[in-house]
């Protein structure tokens, strides 16, 4: 139960650090934003990342993966968070690949997983329907008929939804919104008839889309996993994603903090560096504590995922809640401590705050996860 990185994980972290620093610095995100780039990410770079094995980090060798585990992936995510790199790591690697691996049929695995590993296939999970994360509230209806299923309804906040080659759509096949039973998942082609995809332009300049399903017809073999019983696998994969996202947020928090501390040392007012003012020192020290605590929860949660421990759900909520609280504090303080410069689009510190708020809302914010932790612990 080590909370430290082993040698391989350390090497991976160092390598990804320079990779993201060189290839996907914040200026790359700015360029995607300002150029109104349709895809919102760089597909060639994604293939390069895939060549290095990152797309198949969680997948076994049978499908071409490197099976490096969550703790390894966590390091990639943390470093991607430092430069706010726009990649399909969350949609494809954290969410879709483990979901297919976990509940997919042999044919589905053979069709999908090697293509994920090679970087050729991007998948998105179409889950949310309301402005706040509540997986069981799924209403999008899938009606069985003799030829398969017909899907009707709408999805929102689908990460990489408009660029995904295929979608995993969470649907309701029985029961009512709010029930955990009665959910089923389907693989739907990105270009399916009756599917409309609209990219939403979000504050973090990353990819998300609204989808509408108007009598979208799928074959029986599009069903991913069991009918009506998708919730368990979905929650398990969401926990992996929550923890992975917490790792990304940790990276963003560490970087925003580092930049702020550097600024406190160089910016002078009243003839002295502003970092000599105790009002700022104490707040900086508080942020340091919050970052250290978050780091510990992320490492423990990643370790628990790799060890397939039974306390993964608690730890997922712990890590995500701490990451949300930490990043809200750190990004707000970062902008404040930069003064007027912090409010400008030219200074990069604001990008961290914008990304933070989106990441906070993704898969449950601090309040959601405190409530979930309390319930899991019987409070």
């Amino acid at each position, binding site marked *: 139960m080590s909370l430290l990185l082993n040698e391989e994980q350390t090497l991976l972290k160092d390598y990804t650090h320079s990779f993201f620093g060189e290839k996907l610095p914040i200026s790359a995100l700015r360029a995607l934003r300002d150029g109104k780039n349709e895809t919102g990410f760089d597909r060639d770079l994604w293939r390069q990342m895939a060549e290095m094995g990152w797309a198949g980090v969680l997948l076994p060798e049978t499908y071409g993966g490197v099976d490096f585990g969550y703790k390894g992936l966590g390091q990639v995510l943390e470093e991607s968070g430092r430069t706010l790199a726009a990649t399909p790591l969350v949609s494809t690697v954290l969410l879709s690949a483990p979901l297919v691996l976990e509940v997919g049929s042999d044919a589905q695995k053979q069709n999908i997983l090697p293509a994920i590993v090679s970087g050729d296939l991007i998948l998105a999970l179409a889950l949310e329907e309301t402005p706040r994360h509540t997986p069981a509230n799924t209403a999008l209806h899938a009606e069985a008929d003799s030829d398969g299923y017909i899907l009707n309804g709408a999805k929102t906040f689908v990460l990489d939804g408009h660029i995904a080659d295929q979608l995993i759509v969470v649907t309701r096949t029985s029961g009512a919104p709010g029930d955990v039973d009665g959910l089923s998942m389907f693989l739907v082609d990105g270009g399916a008839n009756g599917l409309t995809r609209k990219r939403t332009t979000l504050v973090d300049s990353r990819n998300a889309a609204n989808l509408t399903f108007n009598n979208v017809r799928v074959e029986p073999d599009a069903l991913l996993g069991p009918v009506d019983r998708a919730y368990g696998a979905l929650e398990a994969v969401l926990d992996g994603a929550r923890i992975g996202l917490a790792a990304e947020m940790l990276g963003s928090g560490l970087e925003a903090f580092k930049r702020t501390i550097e600024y406190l040392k160089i910016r002078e007012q009243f003839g002295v560096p502003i970092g000599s003012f105790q009002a700022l020192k104490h707040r900086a020290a508080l942020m340091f504590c919050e970052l250290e*605590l978050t780091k510990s929860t992320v490492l423990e949660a990643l370790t628990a995922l790799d060890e397939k421990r039974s306390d993964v759900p608690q730890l997922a909520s712990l890590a995500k809640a701490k990451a949300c609280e930490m990043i809200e504090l750190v990004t707000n303080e970062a902008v404040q401590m930069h003064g007027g410069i912090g409010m400008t689009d030219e200074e990069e510190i604001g990008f961290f705050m914008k990304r933070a708020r989106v990441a906070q809302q993704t898969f449950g914010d601090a309040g959601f996860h405190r409530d979930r932790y309390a319930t899991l612990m019987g409070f």
Partner: protein
Amino acid sequence: MNALERFRAKTRTWLEENCPLSMRTPMPEEERVWGGRQPKFENPDSKIWFDRMVAQAWTVPAWPKEYGGGGLSREESIILGEEMGRLKCRVPLFSFGISMLGPVLLKYGTPEQKAKHLPPIARGELRWCQGYSEPGAGSDLASLKTRAEDKGNHYLVNGQKVWTSYAHLADWIFCLVRTDTTTKHAGISFLLFDMTTPGVETRPIALISGGSFFCETFFEDVIVPKDQLVGKLNGGWDIAKQLLQHERGMIAQIGRAIGGKVPPVYKVAKKYLGDENGKIDDPALRDAVVQHTMNDRAFDLTIKRAAQESEAGTASGGASSMFKFYGTEQNKKKFELIMKCVGTNGLGWEGDEFDDDELMICRTWLRSKGNSIEGGTSEIQLNVIAKRVLELPD
């Protein structure tokens, strides 16, 4: 089975056979054993437990055998701690000698000083107190004025200390004194002396929590033999700071020590607020309780990570200040939360209208306020983090 597994098995059996059942229950403060020339054992079992642990030298499991320690390796003493935790064994001996003085004596003491002072500490025969703070020197400790003058074959100590915890019950004191008045930090020395030496006087001070365990301590022409100086003359500040790190580490753990009598906050919340449908019935307090609990868990994990890092030699420093700051603030919050949950039942000062736990909660809540003051205030810990870890300018 490897050697460590055998050690674990042996230790477990020994503890199961030797730790009296009543020593596996939460410990009320008055049952703590402090040792000393006149040791007190409120509970007879605690004497049995104390004697057995002393015989094993497990009051200080990791100290070297030649100085009365158990001579256990780091791994073995961790295992002992885990096994004691598993059985919920009480700490057999509370001692500033063990938690504060011992580690610096091991490092800075002469062989004679170690041989003289460490074994009685290990056996709980002498009780020590800490003479650091003075009326004019609190956070700015290095401005201390208590003088020790060189009189040839001894030092002559004059001055006053304050907030000296348990000075009235202590047998010996480790004391910071000024031996050079022309500089600040470089004019401080670290002295040890017997509290029964003529010229030493203590006056207990009443606390907001009702007890009076700390004192004003006066020194008038106290004669201290020269071989009771630890380290170099005027070299006391480094020793003082190291000792503070040990003290901070200890205070940070307050509230999470094995055998603490206060139940977890969520249990108090359920008991006083109700838990229909298994949920604490007040949503606002439920959220506050869970947030506090999660921070506790994150803090525990951080302690664990720091221990692993220091073992691996990758520790980044500044940890003891972070732990002192965060741990004590958490403990204060815990009692504020408990007081909110208990409501007016927590407001009793004394009398039969309140049960013992409720009275204890109120007193402990008040006592917890000192956690972020003693051993260096929270503000001072934040200063240390800003300076040493973040390297922000003065």
